[in-house]
């Protein structure tokens, strides 16, 4: 299975994860400050800054894109409960 590396800047941890993993699954396990709310892509609590490697994440779904827009999310921000890791190296931080 393809792997990717996700770095959580705020806790200084890089995690090797299988493709398809959602950011929130790893974030919780390493105790990063990316926090969760509804886990269904609606509340925007898990808004995450993609510091690098955004191209290695799945594209936002229509729902996620709408929630990001409604919440005036800056560019290079994603919902950790929705964004899935594909490959490569990704660096993230709490929004």
């Amino acid at each position, binding site marked *: 299975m393809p792997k990717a590396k996700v770095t959580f800047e*705020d806790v200084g941890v890089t995690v090797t994860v299988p493709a398809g993993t959602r950011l929130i699954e790893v974030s919780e396990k390493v105790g990063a400050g990316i926090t969760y709310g509804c886990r269904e892509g609606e509340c925007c609590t898990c808004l995450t800054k993609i510091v690098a490697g955004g191209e290695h994440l799945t594209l936002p779904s229509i729902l996620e894109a709408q929630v990001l827009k409604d919440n005036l999310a800056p560019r290079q921000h994603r919902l950790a409960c929705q964004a899935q890791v594909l490959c490569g190296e990704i660096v993230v931080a709490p929004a």
Partner: protein
Amino acid sequence: MAVLTPDTPVPHAAARVIARDVHWIGALDPELRRFDLLLDSAHGTTYNAYCVRGSAGVSIVDTVKETFADEFFRRLESVADYDEIRAIVLNHLEPDHSGALPELRRRAPKARLYVSSRAQMMLKGVLHGTAGEFTAVQTGDHLDLGDRRLRFLQTPYLHWPDTQCTYLEGDALLFSGDIFGSHYCDARLFNDAVGSFRAAFEQYYACIMRPFAREVRQALALIEPLPLRLIAPAHGPILRDAPAYYLSRYRELSTPSPATGEHTLLVFYLSAYGNTRRMAEELARAAASDEVRVELIDLDGAAIAPLLERIERADAIACGSPTINGDAVKAVWDLLSSLTCIDVRGKIGAAFGSYGWSGEAVRMIEERLRGLKLRTPLPGVRARLTPGSDELAACRSLGHDLALHLCGRAEHRTIDMASLA
């Protein structure tokens, strides 16, 4: 008790002028004693709604709790006809402000609803199909009423994601929603006419706004540059006398203590037989240095309220609890449940504790710390019954590593997800 007395009858039908062609059309709720399950309201409250008349029509700003709708409509009808209403602005969707909206929309079908951009996700849940057509606005958007204009300012999380303020240009009047509110009911309405509501104003900030101190500062950055003659909040007295005082008070309350260059770790513990206390002491000793100030606090019998300010100022907290009956001890939950009243996002948290046979408390505390939006970069330490040398070493290691994180010198780790629990 409420300030209303037999000598000050509630004027059920009268709207009140608060500025030229601007009327208060809200409702008085002197009997309310608890608000949102969170906040005692010994003086009741008001649900403030306003009617703004321009040359091109009328805008209503906020409505009232549904059970007070009749009072609201009587006041509204005394100053405007429904077919004059071309806009309804909701600064906040909570039911105490949106309760009369469905009926208002029915009575004023020409009116368009204006809500904040972030309100969209909540609109359906609050109004269940009765919202109708609406316009989502952002900071800087305007609503033109002919000879006057309303300007929108987004103030999210004060205290819901949707909250916004609406500024009446020219008149320098801010409809501030819940910001600058008080749960204080006095039919005299204005801050220079009502009794002393200082305690209610302070309590309102402490219970409603304090967890969002950083958002308060962001909102003040938008509001402070505005000329202000009057602040019309959604609850409590209308602030026409010295409105700048209330801005400065919010600024004061929301400003963090100046950085000292020293990091603070608070180590809380409960201990029935001294085992968890021993762990706390080891952790604390290992963390303490010239750069990290450590305070060790026994939660047994401790009053929670005075601890909140210390936690608010601290950079990290470690919580120790034995596992008793498969759970952490109640005093720990009392402390952690109180942390929703302050801003702890991004602080570092950790857990530890002794146990007899199952040891769930540490994991439970860690989960709660994450739920409170703390970072928990270091796994907790558990000790079966009396901590041995290895377990005490693990406590020292936890203290040492917490200190490194606080000082920004923690070593970067690379791990495989499979190794994470």
